[in-house]
């Protein structure tokens, strides 16, 4: 894989602006805002193609329509919420607003939705060299989704501030939401780029498999921990994976600079996109925000690993910063 990312628009839990655009659910609103910021940063007005990942889609509108349908016995319903509830609404709305007639895909594979949107970018850009694709990951949180995911033990029964994630290990993580978009090309774009060299995305409920997949990934990419300037971890405070992250922190990457991000955003299906967005942000400023530092700040930002999981969905990202 060779993908070159420029610019990012990120919005996450606690930073979501109030309703600005009428008749749009939260996901569509923050999706458009992040896509616009990303395009501004990367200096494009219209992408050639769009690829989006969303684990849950447009929940607020789904909830709205469902609520009325059930309480009104399928009568006196209006179409707006239904129209906005389809999973491809964010990608379709960006296409409409930018006049992008190109390729447009939406992936909904739980914790791999964003990863598959990236793999799709690779497939598309291989066939369309020179084009630029807007790629993003987005999920919104609603009262209903939080309640359901608490029953699933994805989220803790007692939801609290995500800041406590790094120091606690319990049944489940803390609820979050967010979006990150990137302008992606198949060759180096002008200015600073994140070069994605490889992504390993796999599903396992056994953390020994996750550990061995990481060593496979590193040897396949010809990297050892000493080569890494920064490892960004999707540590989520969930006791099912805390052993995994503890091993990485105390052993595999004990001597490397470690960063985390879910204590800022909380957990959600496409949080890996936000992790990547924060890496882009750090690279652009050549400085890792204090709030992300776990042990000590990196000496330089050139070789970065992103290691994430959402429930049993894992992904590992081999990233280089090109200036």
């Amino acid at each position, binding site marked *: 894989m060779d993908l070159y990312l420029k610019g990012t628009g990120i919005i996450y839990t606690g930073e979501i602006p109030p309703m600005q655009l009428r008749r749009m659910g939260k996901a569509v609103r923050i999706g458009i805002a992040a896509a616009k910021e990303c395009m501004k940063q990367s200096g494009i007005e219209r992408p050639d193609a*769009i690829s989006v990942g969303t*684990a*849950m*889609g447009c929940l607020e509108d789904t909830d709205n*329509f*469902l*609520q009325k*349908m*059930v*309480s009104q*016995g*399928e*009568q006196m*319903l*209006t*179409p707006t919420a*239904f*129209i*906005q*509830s*389809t*999973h*491809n*609404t964010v*990608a*379709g*709305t960006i*296409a*409409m607003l*930018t*006049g*992008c*007639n*190109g*390729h*447009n*895909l*939406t*992936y*909904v*594979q*739980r914790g*791999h*939705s964003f990863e*598959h949107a990236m793999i*799709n970018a690779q*497939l598309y850009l*291989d*066939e369309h060299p020179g084009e630029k694709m807007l790629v993003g990951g987005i999920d919104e949180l609603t009262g*209903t989704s939080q*309640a*359901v995911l608490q*029953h*699933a033990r994805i989220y803790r029964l007692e939801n609290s501030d995500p800041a406590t994630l790094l120091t606690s290990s319990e049944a489940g993580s803390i609820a979050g939401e967010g979006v990150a978009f990137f302008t992606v090309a198949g060759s180096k774009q002008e200015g600073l780029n994140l070069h994605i060299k490889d992504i390993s995305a796999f*599903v396992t409920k056994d953390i020994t498999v996750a550990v061995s997949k990481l060593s496979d990934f590193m040897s396949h990419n010809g990297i050892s921990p000493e080569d890494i300037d920064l490892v960004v971890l999707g540590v989520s405070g969930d006791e099912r994976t805390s052993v995994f992250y503890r091993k990485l922190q105390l052993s595999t990457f004990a001597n490397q600079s470690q960063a985390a991000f879910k204590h800022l955003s909380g957990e959600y299906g496409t949080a890996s996109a936000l992790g990547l967005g924060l890496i882009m942000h750090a690279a652009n400023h050549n400085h890792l925000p204090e709030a992300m530092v776990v042990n000590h700040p990196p000496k330089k930002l050139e070789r970065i690993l992103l290691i994430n999981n959402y429930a049993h969905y894992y992904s590992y990202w081999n990233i280089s910063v090109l200036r």
Partner: protein
Amino acid sequence: MKEKAFVVGTGIITAIGNDTESCKASLMAGRSNIGKPEFLQTHWRDEIPVAEVKLSNKELAALTGADEQWPRTALLSAVAVKEAWAPFKDKMRGLRVGFFSANTVGGMDLTESYYGQFQKDRNDVDFSKLANHECGAVTEIVAGLFGFSDFVTTVSTACSSSANSIMMATQMIANGMIDVAVAGGADSLSRFTLNGFNTLMILDRQPCQPFDNNRRGLNLGEGAAYIVLMSEKAMQQCGATAVCTVSGYANNNDAYHQTASSPEGTGNKLAMLNAMKTAGVSPKDIDYINLHGTGTANNDSSEGKAIEAVFNGYLPKASSTKAYTGHTLGAAGAVEAVFSYIAIRDGIVYPNLRWQTQMEDISWQPVTELQTGQDINHVLSNSFGFGGNCSSLVFSKS
């Protein structure tokens, strides 16, 4: 050098048949199945006809050994995967297999039945009713049933979803990322979609009449369909024979409106032209178009005009099969991929059922009589949807 993706098998379940050959028999006999639902519990039961699969969840589950508590979309998906996969499942040693599915409703059928109770008391919850709500969860449990793990994904681009899952599978075989793919999609009827489409006032109160001047709207359907794609190497290993390849594909966006097509069918034109371009064929090479042809005033008019523009001077045989199966949404692209496969394999062009009156705003008409003994080398299959998503696939005889 890119690998070709050969189509070596199919699996399908729709209102007109529980497998490939029974669907073919219904298509040949001009037999649709649009009427009152038996299983979908809705206020609109007597007013809005649908194309329902006439098997209960329990009966569907019994066909595959799936859990009858699964969402109906997963149960339908498993039936179609089982048919497609049966000839090959024991011959996969050393081959990388991808499962590319698509749907739009996920586990909504269970969620909507349980939602009222859930909102009343969020502490006393039967979580099994909500556990598979996500579109990706439906794919995950079906993948688990058949042991697919090398690559498992779900596309959700409304009515074009499963055309796009077939496109991605083709690309990953072409690039050598996998050897074998089971690609397609599934969707069950749900009150959510029925009521949603009803608010848009595009549901026909009678059996639909695609591409007829007096068309009144679409009928919703349900079903699942998958095609098995293989690289040449994989085909040799398991002794499979191909009927056709997925030779062309394109995905474009109309960028016009969230639910309506642009009057001139901008996205439709681009998808058809780009799909033929990737296939390396020109409009005169296309022997048959399986139309998107939902039966709504807007959809058929846009698609009709786009075809007129793209096939200027050479209009191939064309028909919509949605008058048989209803619009199966996330499954539609794959259902029609299976019909395209049969068209090539058996030299058949299906009649566009219930067509009576020439549309005023286009100059061509769909095929209205069954045609057999045809030499069909290239089929173009259209799938256009909400969000401006427009996809076309080209299947070429191998």
